[in-house]
């Protein structure tokens, strides 16, 4: 009964999207969107090519080379600059804003009239740091906010640090970016109020001597570490809390079972304080990824984006259903 209702609901949703995409107004918007996104991508590409040619010619012919490069740049970039002026006017927007505002948001509004996707995320950094591995630089972006009863919102998060490496001969030094986290952070209202706070973070054992390795923040001031009755949970997660009773009430069999199911899919961590609940999933990918190539931009379609977005939203809802 429920699945039939859901199916008819989906068909209705699909029909609304199909109608919206077929409307002449939207077709015009879609054409403009593709042109603008293509223009942004091409502008970036040609600018890089011109700079590379410029440097090359300067190295070969010095100032004559630079003049030649400027002439090439004028003939290559100026027509594109004029085209961009026509397309954007004085209001230049990058592809991220264009895609989110003109493609994702209209779909979200059709599914959840109260919902929205924003380019930047407004999650507090301290809360993000509680559910992801310790890192140096944190970036959160493309946030979907449902503005529903549980105030559910999900954002992509990327955290990294840089490391200096020296070559074996000791002559060359390079700086490399090391990814500490790439995935999603969920924020929602915790039903009831939680006394103190709790953090459940993944842990793993090293290949050598099977020692515990934890990339996530360890015991903080005022926290205690507790175990559960679930051996698998104890071997895969560490639990830090400030109120043991509240923590044990929260970690009932259903919640432990939920964690166990998630072990095989991705690293999952939780942080709860008062009414706020944060969950992280290390998926090593973005949700709502931007089209990156000219081909992807040319094939942009509301229906296709709807299907992808619907899939992501369905997963978000089923993943968080236990806490709703």
């Amino acid at each position: 009964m429920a699945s039939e209702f859901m199916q008819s609901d989906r068909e209705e949703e699909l029909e609304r999207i199909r109608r919206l995409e077929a409307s002449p107004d939207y077709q015009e918007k879609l054409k403009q969107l593709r042109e603008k996104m293509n223009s942004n991508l091409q502008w970036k590409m040609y600018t890089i090519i011109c700079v590379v040619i410029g440097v090359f010619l300067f190295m070969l012919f010095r100032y004559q080379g630079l003049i030649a490069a400027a002439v090439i740049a004028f003939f290559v970039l100026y027509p594109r600059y004029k085209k961009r002026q026509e397309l954007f006017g004085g209001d230049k927007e990058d592809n991220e804003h264009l895609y989110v505002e003109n493609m994702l948001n209209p779909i979200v509004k059709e599914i959840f009239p109260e919902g929205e996707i924003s380019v930047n995320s407004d999650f507090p950094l301290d809360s993000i740091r509680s559910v992801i591995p310790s890192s140096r630089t944190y970036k959160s972006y493309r946030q979907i906010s449902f503005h529903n009863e549980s105030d559910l919102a999900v954002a992509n998060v990327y955290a990294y640090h840089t490391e200096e490496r020296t070559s074996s001969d000791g002559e060359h030094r390079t700086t490399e970016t090391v990814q500490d986290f790439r995935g999603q952070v969920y924020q929602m209202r915790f039903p009831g109020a939680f006394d103190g706070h709790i953090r459940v973070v993944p842990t793993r054992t090293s290949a050598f001597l099977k020692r515990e390795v934890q990339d996530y923040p360890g015991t903080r001031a005022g926290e205690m570490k507790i175990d559960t009755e679930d051996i698998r949970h104890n071997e895969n997660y560490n639990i830090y809390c400030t109120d043991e009773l509240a923590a044990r009430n929260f970690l009932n069999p259903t919640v432990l079972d939920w964690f166990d199911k998630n072990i095989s899919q991705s690293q999952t961590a939780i942080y709860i304080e008062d009414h706020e609940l944060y969950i992280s999933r290390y998926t090593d990918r973005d949700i709502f990824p931007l089209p990156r190539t000219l081909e992807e931009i040319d094939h942009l379609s509301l229906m296709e984006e709807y299907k992808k977005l619907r899939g992501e939203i369905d997963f978000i809802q089923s993943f968080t259903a236990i806490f709703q």
Partner: protein
Amino acid sequence: MVFAVVVILAAVIIIGWFIGQSNRLNRYVVSIEESKKTVDITLAKRYDTISEMLKVAKAYAKHEEKVFTELVGLRQSASIQETNRAMANQNDVLSQIRAVAENYPDLMSSQQFLTLQKEIASENDELAASKRIVNSNVRVMNQAIVSFPTSLVAGFKGMSKFDFLEEDLEGKKDLKDLDYNID
């Protein structure tokens, strides 16, 4: 001299490893007992709910002289086999209640019965989750007991494989069949 040192060092490492494994197995036993207690607590809650449902069903079916299976309570520190039996008994009684409810639409729609059905549904979820944890613990323990070289430690301690809680009991299907939708 060197040989003696090597022998002593090897003995220390082996004893250290043996104590470590023995403690690990002891921790597993404690975890199994703890998780089993959660199942027992859920079963005790479920027993109370089924007793209430039984009272309501008996009141509706009093003219029918229907004989229900006796609902047996679970004693403290019950073994896994006893817990399995208690679960089977509860499921049996629940399926009988369901059969009565099908013949009495008034019972099916009474507010008290609907509330109890909701409680049973949530207790079934909790029971299923806690059973999965016990069985997962038993699986980890049994794997350790049969895996070499931990099997040597388990054999020395006289440990044998643990029984699983039964996942799919006869009456479970009937429980699932109950229509828990209130609307």
